[in-house]
Every structure is written in C-alpha cells, then in structure tokens.
C-alpha cells in the first residue's frame, strides 16, 4: 500500500508536463490563492546584511546599484543567495569577469549570462522570461529601454518574487545607460581608498568601498564602509553546492 502511494507520487514527475506560467492552471491557482505569500528575504553576505533593515534582499524589489563599485557590489549582494541555491542571471554585461564573481562568493555553477537584443520590447520580453526561473537578476539596461516597459518588468518581478539588481556600468565601456526603473532601494558604492598600489610598485590588494543604502523602501539611509573582496565571502563553504557523500 505504501509502495503504491510512493509510485503514484513519483509517476507524474516522470512525464514532462509543460508548465506555462501566466496562463491556464497556474493563473487559476494564483487567483484562487490571492496575493503570493510572503517569502523570506534572500540572504546577503555578512558585512552587507546590516545595511538592509530586513537582513537581506526582500523579494519582489528592484535595487539600483550606482557608483564606481556598482558591479562588484551587485555581485557581492547576490553571492549568498546563489550559494543557498538561487540562480543568478546577468543580463547585458558581456564582459563580466567570472573570477571577480567567484571572489565575491557567487556559486559559479548557477550563473547564466544573457545577451538579449537591445530593442526595448525584445529586451523586456527576454528578461521577463528569465524572471520565471531566476531569483536574482543583475541587469544593465540598454539606452533604448522605455519607462513603460521597465514598469511592466517590475510588475513581473513583484509577481514572481525575484530580485532585480540594476547596475550602472562605467561610462567608458557602454553607451550611456539610462535608469528608467523606479527603484525600491538605491545602493551607492564608491571606492574611497585603493590600498597597495603606488607609483610603479606593488599592486592593488584591496579596495575600501563606502556603501550607502537609501530609497523609498528604506526608512533611514544606512551607510557602511567595507573592504572588497570581503574575507568572509569566498571562504565560507556553501552547504548546498557539495552533495552529501556516500559513506
């Protein structure tokens, strides 16, 4: 009897049932269930966690990262979530240094890079499709993105309970990127000191970054000076990326 129940439980998972979110059974369920239940915020590595009142990234929100350390900070923000099993999509950052992501503590097996077309509508459609499967998205919006499309994307982010991190890339690499997103949190990360580098000698060993979090979902601005890469980021071994051993 118990075996039969088990078989009945396993069987449906063998067949491939295509699930299309946003239509059919899922929508019915969602309307019947009402608003999505509140899920715990995504974890954030230790030195950055204290900058968020909730102790992590609240799902469904848009975070704008600016300043000269924007990309490094965005990677650091998504690191703990990927180690806990979330997937990270990096959209329109074709030159991402994976080594920097690993140094920030991102689980490299759960990074996917996407290069959607730059036309506003196609770009938003692609990112919206990625939202279905990814908990964290780091995006560099193209200049052509319209505010209307950005709003639609944010609605999708809220419905799917993911986190959208909009980064500002240095002006010298990309054509001026516009931030048309109305962000819930603004994270400004500016390097205040580079240590190690001199007039010809040594090399950069560490950067000290001042991170300031403010925005409409933040009651009072919080500020903290951290060093990148944080020593705690990559040394912490993920419990999930290594499967349990047979012994």
């Amino acid at each position, binding site marked *: 009897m118990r075996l039969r129940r088990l078989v009945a439980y396993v069987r449906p*998972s*063998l067949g*491939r049932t295509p699930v299309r979110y946003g239509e059919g059974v899922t929508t019915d369920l969602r309307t019947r269930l009402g608003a999505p239940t509140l899920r715990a915020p995504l974890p954030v590595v230790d030195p950055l966690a204290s900058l968020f009142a909730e102790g992590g990234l609240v799902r469904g929100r848009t975070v704008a990262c600016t300043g*000269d*350390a924007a*990309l*490094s900070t965005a990677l650091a923000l998504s690191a703990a979530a990927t180690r806990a099993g979330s*997937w990270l999509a990096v959209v329109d*950052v074709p*030159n991402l*240094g*994976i*080594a*920097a992501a690993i*140094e920030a503590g991102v*689980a*490299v*097996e*759960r*990074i*996917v*890079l*996407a*290069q*959607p*077309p730059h036309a506003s509508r*196609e770009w938003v*459609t*692609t990112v919206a*499709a*990625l*939202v*279905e*499967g*990814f*908990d964290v998205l780091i995006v560099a919006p193209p200049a052509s993105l319209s505010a209307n499309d950005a709003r639609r994307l944010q609605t999708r982010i809220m419905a799917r309970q993911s986190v959208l991190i909009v980064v500002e890339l*240095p002006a*010298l*690499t990309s054509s001026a990127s516009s931030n048309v997103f109305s962000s819930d949190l603004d994270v400004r990360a*500016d*390097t205040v000191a*580079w240590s190690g*580098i*001199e*007039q*010809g000698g040594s*090399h*950069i*060993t560490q*950067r000290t970054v001042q991170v300031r979090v403010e925005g409409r979902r933040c009651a009072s601005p919080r500020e903290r000076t951290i060093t990148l*890469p944080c020593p705690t980021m990559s040394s912490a071994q993920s*419990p*999930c*990326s*290594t*499967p*349990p*051993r*047979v*012994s």
Partner: protein
Amino acid sequence: MLDTPTRVVVVQFPHWSSFAFALGRSARSAFEPIVRAVVAHAPLVEVTAPGVIVFATRGPSRYVGGDESLAALVHSAVGDAVRATAGDTAGATIGSAFDAQRSHAAFGVGIADGRLAAGIASQHALRASEPVVVPANESSRWLATAPVRSLVDCVEVIGAVGAGVPGADDVASYRDVVSLLERLGLYRFGDVAALDESHLVARFGAFGRDLSRLSRGLDRHPPLVGEPPPDRVCLLQFDGPVESRDTVVNAVEELASQLVDHLGAQGVAMVRLHVVIESDHGERSERMWYRSEGFSARAVIESLRWQLDAWILHDAPTSGVVMVRLSPEQLIVNAGRQSALWGGERDGDRHAQRAVRRVADMNGADSVTVPAWRGDRDPARMFQFVRSDAVDLERRTAGDAVDLATGEWRGALPSPAPSLVFDSTDDAPKVRVLDSLGRAVAIDARHAMSADPACVCIDDDTYDVVAWAGPWPVEERWWDARRARRAVRLQLLVRQRHGERSDTSKTDASASRAMVAVLERRTWRLAAIYA
C-alpha cells in the same frame, strides 16, 4: 537473457584535457582525430568523455583475428594519431616542451570482460605502455586481485556514483567510497565480491548494488528481465537537406523527448544510445553514447550536438542532413528521480533550466551562455562562455564550471579580480597611455618603460594617472612561432580630468577608477576595469 558481461576494448588517456590544453585546443575537438583512427578499425565506438573510447570486441576482434591483434592494431593506430596531432600543431616544437606534452599524451589499451575490468586493464597498459588483454572468462578472477583503489581511475569508464555525469564531485564520491571500503578492510574487489549484495545495498544505497555487480566482474546494469517495451522507430527524415546545425538539433529535440517519454512510460530508461546522422550525399556518422544513469532528453541532445559538431568539423559533409536516427541499445529499469532535500537536483534548477531554454528559443541559443573554466593568465580568457544548450543545467556542479585542480596560473592578475574584462579580439575601448610630455609610453625589449605614465585617453576622455603598478611582462609559448604572445600589462589608478567634460557635476571629484591596460604589438588596449 544471460547476465554475462560484454567484452570491451577501453582506450584511455588519463591526462587528455592537459594535453589538449598544451596544444591550445578544446578537449573535445582535439580528441576527434584519435576517434577517427579507432573508427577505421571498429566502426561503432563510444566516446564516453574526451580521452575515453569504449567499444565491443565482438565484430572487430573476429575480423582481425583475435583480441591480441585487435589490441595491437588499436594501440599502434592511436599512437600514430597522437603523434600526428602533436606534430601537426606543435610544428617546430623544441624537444623538452614536446616531451612534456608527450607525457600528458600517455594512453593505455585494455581488453577484458566488462567495462570495469577493461578500464583497469587499460590502466595497467598505461604503465606498461603496451596493450593488456585479459583472457576471455578470466576477468572476474583477474579482477578479484585488483585493488578497489582503481575505481577512482575508472570513473569515466563506468559512470557516476549517483545520478549525474562523471565530474569532479564524482571522483570525490568514488574516493569516499574507496576510503570507506579500505577502512572496512576490503582492499581488493575479491573481498567486496565475497560480501552479500544486500549488505552493500544497506550501506551504499543503489550504488551498493552496482558495486557488488562490478566487483563480481559483471556489467554494472543488470539485463532487463521481463518483456522489452514495444519498439519505437525514432527516425527523422527531413524533406530537403538541412544545412543549419540548430535546425537539426531543434527537430531532434522533439523526437528525443518523445523517445524518453515513451520509454519512461514503460518504466525503463536507456543507458546506451546509437545515433546515426546521414547527409543527402550518403555520408554517415554513427556513434554510440553511454550514460550510466540513463538518458534524459537533454542528454540525448548534448550527445547529438557533440557528434554533429565533430562530424562537420572533421569530415566536412558535402551536403545537408537528411536523416537522424536514434536507437536505444541497452535499457535498464528506470528507478526514477527524486528531488533532493540536500544537494542534487532541486526545483529551482529545473525552473532555471526551463527559463533558459525559453530565452534560447526566443533569441537563439548563442544569446544565453554559462561560464566554463578554461584556464589562462589572461583575465578575459580564464573562462569561456559555453552555449546554454551544450550543458545540462539541472545537473551542473561547481566542478563543471571551475576546475581549481589545475592550480593557480603564474602571471595571472593578482586578487582582487577585475569585474569587467576585455579580450583582445573584442572591440574594447581604445586607450592611449601617455607620459607627462604627451608622448605614448613605450616599453623596450628589457621591459623598461620609456617614461612614467601621466595620463590615459579613452575615446575622447582624458584621465590623470594617480598611481600605477607594473609593467608586468607576459611571454607565452615563446617556443611556438605561430602562437607566441608577448605583451606587457600595467595596472592604473586614474581620475577623470576636470574641465574637459561638460557633465563633471555628475561625477564625484574624488572618484577614481582602477583599470588594466595591455601593450601588445605596439598598441595599448583596455584589458580590465575594476567596476
């Protein structure tokens, strides 16, 4: 059906990826000439991983007159192919570098009953540098004296411990299994074979059954008892020759999922799959594929793409594809897959895979990529980006993405790593590094700078140099005239010059930026930005 092991030949290169890297080629494509050399003597081979070829002796052995002559033939054919591959690329290689490559190219040919015994025989052959043939029906007795430690070296031949393609994690899992067996006082396969199968299952779960079967010299998978499922013809014929690789793959994807579903509905899964591709002019490519845990539709597609790429690259078919056939060769009882609580496959992985496939369908598979370790001292070449449809995202582990076993690269950029990197082939922003008098900074043959850098021009913006480190010379493959590379790196800390841009109000006065510039062939280019 008799439960007797298949007699197989195993050709194994334990250090293939290092060898391919020394040649500057990807492991899969560099392995093709070797595969072709073997195919000349045995038409249907199985390439389990780059560096491992397995095929059944039955037909070829009778044709050439015995296992010994087959082994000798394969050994000499593979040896010639390796020499041709190394000589082809290395050209005027100097002696010592060539010898270093040769030791990576060491291989063994082993013949025995069952994959494990043949795998261990190939390990013996590697040390003796001549083929090892275990006489027919002697394998289980021969295996009984072999140490269980050899399991670790045969991961790619016998497949993974659990569900999953062999990877770095699986080698570790096998190490754990071996270490536990040794702590229990079971040093040889004979000791393990003497144990009751049920005890091994109690200790190791499903793998215990496989372990017991392997130790007794049987095939890992028991033959299917009961009625085989009704045959399903999995033949795809195109109306006209199809030239595009993606079209073929997309069309077969549908077929593969139908086949896997059909078998799944019967409660079985295929572990060996025979794939035939035929062009309009009658050219054929056929190959056997093996997955110890059974094929998923994604695994079928991954294998097909590998076969198609190899065929197009090395045989250059003169016409489009008209036919693809998938025939399951060996079936096992499908134990099903259960999403794991810790590790293994989770719901999130499946959702991500689905989203990626959807985006790949929308914008083309090239638009979605995943990083894979390549290893280089150039920050932009340390990782390559692999098309998402070439990997099975649901089973991806950290070992697939980064191989830290290769160790640190001398001459790589020191930590912290830059978050934006530019390859020399990219259209990276143009950079000019100037000294205080406005002349371009040059570096002589002894890596001395003509003057200290004072300012950097990127496109139309000018930045003042605050501090710099270097110059760091990079000289690669100086022994190979064609692939030699000579460059100099400079780490720069710059600050934007005021008054030159109208929108200075936007940028903070103290905002400084760190970057790496590279001088190669007398031109400076931007290599990395610490963003």
